[in-house]
């Protein structure tokens, strides 16, 4: 009797598993339209205009991949997403989306509203790259001309993945952005994308950063300012510093960079010490310079240090002007001195512009770069 009861219990438990299979279902791959890129603009008659780039596969043995871009309007994003089915026939499949492009109009209203679909939906990944289109519609980016590629979203995806080489923009994913939007101690930064005219074609060009405050786009900074920001955030892995020495351009290739941030709260005065230690190699010079002269090297180091400090101060001033802490200094202060920070916070709003930032930069030129290549 016990065994019968037991086996019935086990059978019931097993049959319960079948009801817990969540919302996925049997679907054939060729019945899916693979979405690789999405662009969100303001609609004319509805709230949003969603533009998607779909993979178009032809051929059986010789696979021929191309992409097609189409737009549709909807009151909400999911509304628009579902409407695609009635155009294409096949179901749009969002799990392989590479990049989301948000137009600056929508970003300056409220970014979190459009992010909801990409973060909450079961099908979309949360590590999708997000970029903000600048000075053009997001949909135009997906319609840009292609160079040596056949899918726009894939091109953008690769550029973002290689961002470390240039250090003029920093990748951001929907997940990290939506997470950072929830804190008030750090401003969200998202790379900006624009169209770059090339002969009679238009290429996509990622450069610079969009800065957000309270879910709203507040300012843009350009590529070189972004690089300075990355110096302050200790996110530099590679890149170049162009400095002038006796009216000659000298390019320093960054080999390694360590930025240490020390925080201090004395008598309600918050101070952040930034110690930048950069190792670089001379990579490109306009005319012959005697690298064997240690004094010349020292001079170049000095010059580049001054240049870096100046640019950092410039960016910090700009950030202070907009009241956006894109460097995460406030977060750092809170982490290091939670009690004191809360006291100040209780007195009133912690303003980024009230934080003192001391910068000291050390540039060390390790070699002439003639033997060091990337």
């Amino acid at each position, binding site marked *: 009797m016990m065994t019968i009861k037991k086996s019935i219990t086990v059978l019931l438990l097993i049959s319960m598993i079948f009801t817990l299979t969540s919302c996925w279902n049997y679907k054939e*791959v060729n019945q899916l339209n693979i979405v690789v890129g999405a662009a969100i603009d303001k609609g004319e008659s509805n709230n949003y205009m969603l533009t998607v780039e779909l*993979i178009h596969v*032809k051929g*059986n*043995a010789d696979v021929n*991949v191309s992409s097609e871009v189409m737009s549709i309007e909807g009151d909400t994003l999911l509304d628009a997403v579902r409407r695609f089915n009635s155009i294409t026939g096949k179901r749009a499949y969002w799990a*392989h989306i590479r990049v989301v492009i948000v137009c600056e109009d929508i970003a300056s209203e409220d970014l979190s509203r459009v992010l909801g679909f990409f973060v909450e939906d079961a099908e979309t990944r949360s590590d999708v790259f997000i970029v903000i289109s600048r000075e053009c519609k997001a949909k135009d980016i997906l319609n840009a001309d292609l160079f040596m590629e056949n899918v726009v979203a894939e091109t953008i995806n690769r550029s973002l993945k290689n961002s470390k080489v240039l250090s003029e923009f920093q990748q951001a994913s929907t997940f990290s952005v939506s997470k950072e939007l929830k804190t008030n101690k750090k401003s969200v930064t998202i790379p900006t994308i624009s169209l770059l005219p090339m002969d009679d074609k238009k290429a996509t060009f990622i450069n610079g950063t969009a800065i957000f405050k309270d879910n709203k786009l507040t300012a843009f900074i350009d590529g070189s300012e972004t690089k300075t920001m990355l110096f302050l955030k200790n996110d530099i892995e590679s890149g170049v510093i162009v400095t002038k020495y006796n009216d000659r351009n000298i390019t320093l290739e960054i080999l390694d960079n360590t930025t240490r941030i020390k925080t201090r709260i004395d008598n309600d005065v918050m101070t952040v010490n930034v110690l930048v230690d950069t190792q670089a190699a001379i990579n490109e010079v306009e005319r012959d310079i005697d690298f064997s002269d240690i004094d010349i090297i020292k001079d170049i180091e000095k010059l580049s240090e001054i240049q870096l400090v100046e640019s950092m101060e410039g960016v910090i001033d700009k950030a202070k002007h907009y009241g956006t802490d894109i460097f995460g200094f406030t977060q750092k202060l809170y982490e290091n001195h939670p009690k004191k920070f809360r006291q100040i916070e209780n007195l009133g709003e912690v303003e980024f512009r009230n934080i003192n930032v001391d910068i000291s930069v050390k540039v060390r030129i390790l070699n002439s770069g003639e033997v060091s290549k990337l």
Partner: protein
Amino acid sequence: MVIIVEKNTKKHIFKKAKSFEGKTKDEKNTNNSGKLTKSLNRNITIFQSSFSNDDTVIFRKFQNQYSDKIKCCIIIIEGMTDIEHINRRVIEPLQNQVFQRPKSSVNLVDEVQNKVLPVNDVRQSTRLNEMIKAVCYGDTVLLLDGCDVALIISSRGWESRPISEPESGKVVRGPREGFTESIIKNVSLIRRKIKNPNLKFKLMELGKQTHTAICITYIEGIALDSILTELEQRLNRIDIDGILDSGYVQELIQDEPLSPFPTVGSSERPDVVVAKMLEGRVAIIVDGSPFVLTVPHILVESIQINEDYYNHFLFGSFNRFLRAASAIATISIPAVYLAIVTYHQEMIPTQLLISISASLEGVPLPTSLSLIIMMLIFDILREAGTRMPTAIGQAVNIVGTLVLGQAAVDAHLVSSPVIIVTAISGITTFMHPTMIESVVILRLVLIIAASFLGIYGYLIGVILILLHLLSIRSFGVPYMMGLTRLEEHDGQDSWIRAPWWSMTLRPKIIGARNQIRQTSRHNR
């Protein structure tokens, strides 16, 4: 093929088989009193009525040339008997030697047995049943006129296959001899490897009609008594009419009759069987079958190949790893592919998804159905290929590769990834031939599970299989022994093959009676 005739040298091992009682009940319906008379002609009639309608039984009457009073008759069956031996050693001395008929009839039998017949294995018998049985086995019954006692002369000899390399389990390095259909040869093959009085052979007889000889062999002092007694009990319980191959015995004595996994091992190679006996296993030789059974049989033996032990241990371990990996791959790859492609497309890298999507363009069948059909076709080809003569087998191969590999893809009947998956799963099947039986079934079960529930279904299937594997035993030995724990000496001969100098202990439980295999390093 060379045909050799077995000489009647070591026939004594069969005598024991005859003392095995209880299996001969149905012989009682022969219409005789069970006793011989003193008249030769009457006796011949009795035998003729027993062997009525059997024209292969030869009754040869003759007499001594010096004494007319000595009349004899031998009864033999053509084809079962070494005729040359009987002619030279029985008929010739009886015809040509001068010997006197003693006064009493019983003494004549003694006289013939002791002085006339130059044969090593002769015995007297008065029981008719015993004599009839002896004739059936190929022995010769010698009837003498005036005697109610007959002589049974061992004369078995029939044509059998010579020892050759087995078709299964080919090796590059290692002994090439294989068992044959003859139990005597098989016994001698084992005896030649273990020259030791501790090697024991126990004979019995199975099959109410076939009277097939069965030999249990083990090494005393290593094999566990509990396994031995359990095996004997199970063999005694068998009450089948015929045993034509060791497969009958295997299925009748195995632990989990419904399990797809074999709990009794079989091998065609003496070195494999002897290696298992040295670990403490018991072997069962069945007359007429070149496959010798070994018990207990655990899962890890499916990935152990004799060549592992003859090659360098690193190479052996690598091969064993490949075998273990392919055992998992062969049942998993089709199911996992199906699950990912039809349920979890987000798991596929985009590039791969695109090419899979392209290959599915214009294919009418759903992936699950086409995969099941391709797996079935592969199994059909495999089965057809095994039964075909070599010449036709090539035609099957060509049809298989061309029609299924190329044409089916070109005709958009199946997608090319499905063909690739089928091929990988099919090839990995052959990495462990002893598991084919279980793999073919489990693979289909997992495919069906995956087609309903995706990865989820596959995992449910795998969990159930693992639970089953962990729950079954072979002759009291856990089936997963050696695979679940990696303590010292436990994992030495499972996932890897440790070097011989480090394998100082026999496997646990199976070799529990005498754990130490070698002492050299163990004592250090």
